[in-house]
């Protein structure tokens, strides 16, 4: 441990391994839940887009069901959702605490958000492109992957960036109710033991993570406007 670090963060130095463990737990929750959110939320967003009355496979009932699911879970505050989902979480993963226990509510909390983000990214795809694809005999699946998702790529990256940042927030909130991670480290050691330096370090680390996500997201998004990232 370098000298200045121990001076600035004396208490963190004492709990260094705990801090690293909580950081790892945060990343674990973040990545596992994040991938699920992108897959599920992305699928929801696509379904909402194509089942709209003017979509490529219009279906009122399907659209309504997904609309209701999205709206219901989006309107529940995350802290309430955490408690509300405890029985379901136990049912799915066997526990409601720790990293495992946090993933279920994280997914439920972030999917509606990402669904709406995806929907709005896909809505920006020029309907003319969809029509051209239809005129070339593309199937709905082909249109989703080869036109919608392909053309919306920069906007989707931006959506993923925003969702990722908000998920860092949700992950730390989940820490407050026993999920572990940086959130619970800040509460258990920072607040409960009155170690202000612990809180300070958590803030700094989160700030760095969020900035990095934003930077990577912006760069990738800009790099994919009107071109492919890798041209094979």
């Amino acid at each position: 441990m370098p000298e200045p670090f121990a001076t600035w963060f004396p208490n963190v130095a004492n709990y260094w391994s705990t801090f690293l463990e909580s950081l790892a737990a945060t990343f674990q929750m973040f990545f596992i839940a994040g991938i699920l959110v992108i897959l599920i939320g992305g699928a929801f967003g696509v379904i909402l887009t194509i089942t709209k009355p003017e979509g490529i496979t219009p279906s009122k009932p399907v659209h309504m069901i997904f609309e209701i699911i999205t709206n219901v879970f989006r309107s529940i505050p995350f802290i309430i959702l955490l408690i509300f989902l405890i029985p379901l979480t136990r049912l799915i993963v066997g526990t409601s605490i720790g990293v495992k226990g946090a993933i279920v509510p994280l997914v439920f909390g972030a999917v509606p958000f990402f669904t709406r983000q995806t929907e709005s990214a896909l809505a920006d795809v020029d309907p003319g492109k969809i029509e051209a694809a239809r005129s070339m005999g593309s199937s709905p699946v082909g249109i989703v992957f080869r036109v919608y998702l392909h053309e919306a790529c920069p906007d989707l990256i931006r959506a993923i960036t925003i969702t990722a940042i908000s998920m860092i927030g949700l992950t730390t909130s989940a820490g407050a109710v026993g999920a572990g991670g940086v959130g619970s480290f800040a509460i258990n050691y920072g607040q409960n033991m009155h170690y202000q330096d612990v809180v300070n370090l958590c803030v700094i680390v989160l700030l760095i993570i969020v900035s990095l996500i934003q930077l990577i997201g912006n760069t990738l998004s800009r790099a994919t406007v009107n071109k492919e990232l890798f041209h094979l």
Partner: protein
Amino acid sequence: MIQIEHVKKTFHLKNSDVRALDDVSLTIATGSIYGIMGYSGAGKSTIVRCINFLEKPDSGSISIDDFGKVTSENGKLTTERDGKTVPVTEKDLRKLRRSIGMIFQHFNLLDRSTVFENIAYPLKHTGLSRGEIKEKVLKLLELVDLSDKKDAYPSQLSGGQKQRVAIARALANSPKILLSDEATSALDPDATESILKLLKKLNKELGLTIIIITHEMAVIREIADRAAVMENGRIVEEGEVYDIFSTPQQPITRRFVETSSSLGNIGKLVENHTVSLENTPRKKLIKLTFTRDSVGEALISSVSRKFDVDLSIVLANVNLIGTDALGGIIATLEGDPDHVSQALDYIQKSGVRVEVIDHA
């Protein structure tokens, strides 16, 4: 041959129903260039979208070579196969669409794909190997004269080049029919010219049947063989392009024809009192139309010599319809009343159409 019979289509909007197609029948010969013109909302886009079933007609039938006759009843499509009436599935329609190319006003290319990838789009997942696709795309690029832009992205191309890419893409599956939806309307005159030339070439070399919808008369004049004029979901006039231009029957057709001829300016001249509409026995404002049989005659000078009248030209215009000339002159005819009426008779007999203009 494409045969459209009694096709009807109504769009149900929130507050009203819009009758986009009201009993439209059309026959388009194989290998021809067919123009459909009309103002926006006339139904011309809807009718071409019915040909590849991007829009499903409410009723009527459409028959296309190689695909057979598809009949619609209340939006349900059926066709005859082996003597039996069977429903037309989405899969059938996708197959049909692959045999009909379509190009658009705003090109509708994929912005995140290169020119090559755009043209390869309809070829993928059709069972062709990578090598076969590459060979085909390169051939198409050559056809539209864009071989050097293979790896460019659409954002790096001009409007005319984008439309060329779109044409190559539309032709990828070697269709027999090409639908063109206002394909030149977003282009500058030079690009329009070059795209029209390309379409003409494709029509000649590949025997492609091209259906062009446009609000620009000049486009129809330049390349179409036959044309239809649409208004309020109906076809109000149909025929050889030359006839439509030389003897327009309907008011809307006349308005269209005027937009492509400087004779349409007579209205403005009258408005500005440069020309008077007051016809007297001594002085008349006349419009002469020279069709392909009479276009070479020295009518004006011979009339003024023979009948001792003054013919002074106000406006004159010659258009090329395909390869045939169509001339028009607006002139004042002045002289002794007897001579004036004799002159008018003479002109009429000479095969030049003459009208006395009494309203602009």
